[in-house]
């Protein structure tokens, strides 16, 4: 009997919230053994206390809410700035592309007309 008690006590922490008590021999032992029943009661009490602990909320420092809201405001500003930059990126890139293309065209035309002038001089 003592050996079985030892075996069952080892299982109790996992069995306490299991209504089937796992194996049949475990449940039948628990029905007859007062020592193991007492042990099970302790685990049930423990679970009850832990469940009730959720209602007990430790008071946070008084400045926590302000810190959270300030942090979020900063994040909001950062995100707004990022999205603004993101939106203005497209016209900005188009502007650069147009500028580069214009300069390129100008250089191409200039090079081409200089070449023609040389040909004319030689001719």
């Amino acid at each position: 009997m003592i050996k079985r008690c030892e075996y069952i006590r080892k299982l109790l922490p996992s069995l306490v919230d299991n209504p089937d008590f796992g194996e049949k021999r475990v449940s039948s032992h628990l029905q007859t053994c007062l020592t193991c029943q007492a042990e099970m009661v302790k685990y049930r009490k423990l679970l009850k206390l832990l469940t009730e602990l959720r209602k007990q909320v430790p008071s946070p420092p008084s400045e926590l809410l302000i810190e959270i809201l300030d942090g979020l405001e900063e994040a909001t500003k950062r995100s707004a700035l990022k999205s603004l930059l993101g939106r203005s990126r497209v016209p900005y890139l188009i502007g650069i592309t147009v500028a580069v293309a214009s300069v390129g065209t100008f250089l191409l035309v200039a090079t081409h007309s200089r070449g023609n002038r040389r040909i004319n001089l030689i001719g």
Partner: protein
Amino acid sequence: MTFARADESLNMEDLTRLVLLAKAGDSESFEDVVKATYLDAYALAYRLTQNIDDACDVTQEAYFRVYKSLKNFRGDSSFSTWLYRIVANCASTHLTRKGKRRHYELDEQLVVDRDDDSNPEEKTANSFEWDRIADALAELPPRLRAVVVLKDVYDFSHKAIAKELGITEAATKVRLHRARKKLREVLFPLRIRGGDDKTV
């Protein structure tokens, strides 16, 4: 330790309405959501970290993540459950980053009074010293504490715990077993006549 009641917050319907407005981009509603839920978020962060500064950092980080990913909140679970999962994940990351093992603060609220001669078994649940449970939880290694807090206090499933802590479901079951056993030993020690308290 002083306690604020958790049930002072908004009811579920009001909170859901605010979350929807916040999701649509209403910053005032988001602020109201924070005001309504931050005590609970802090409570979980504190239970997991057992340190006021760490709990504040974790809570702030959690709301930052909530803000960033609120658009992805589908409402499959309640907002509170979603928030708790984020807090749990942030706490796990925070503790891993800090490489904490056991954490003892000088703050007297976390000091366990080992000379207390009272027998907790004789006390009813209502008059039980909550500090004693908090102290017993604080005594647990963080990896065991995280699982027992999430499962037995916050009613997470093993699957959710495994996901948020980055471990297997089998590992959460083993850790829960060990954590409960340790808590039982600390909170309900076996009295042996003529000797010190011993645990079974």
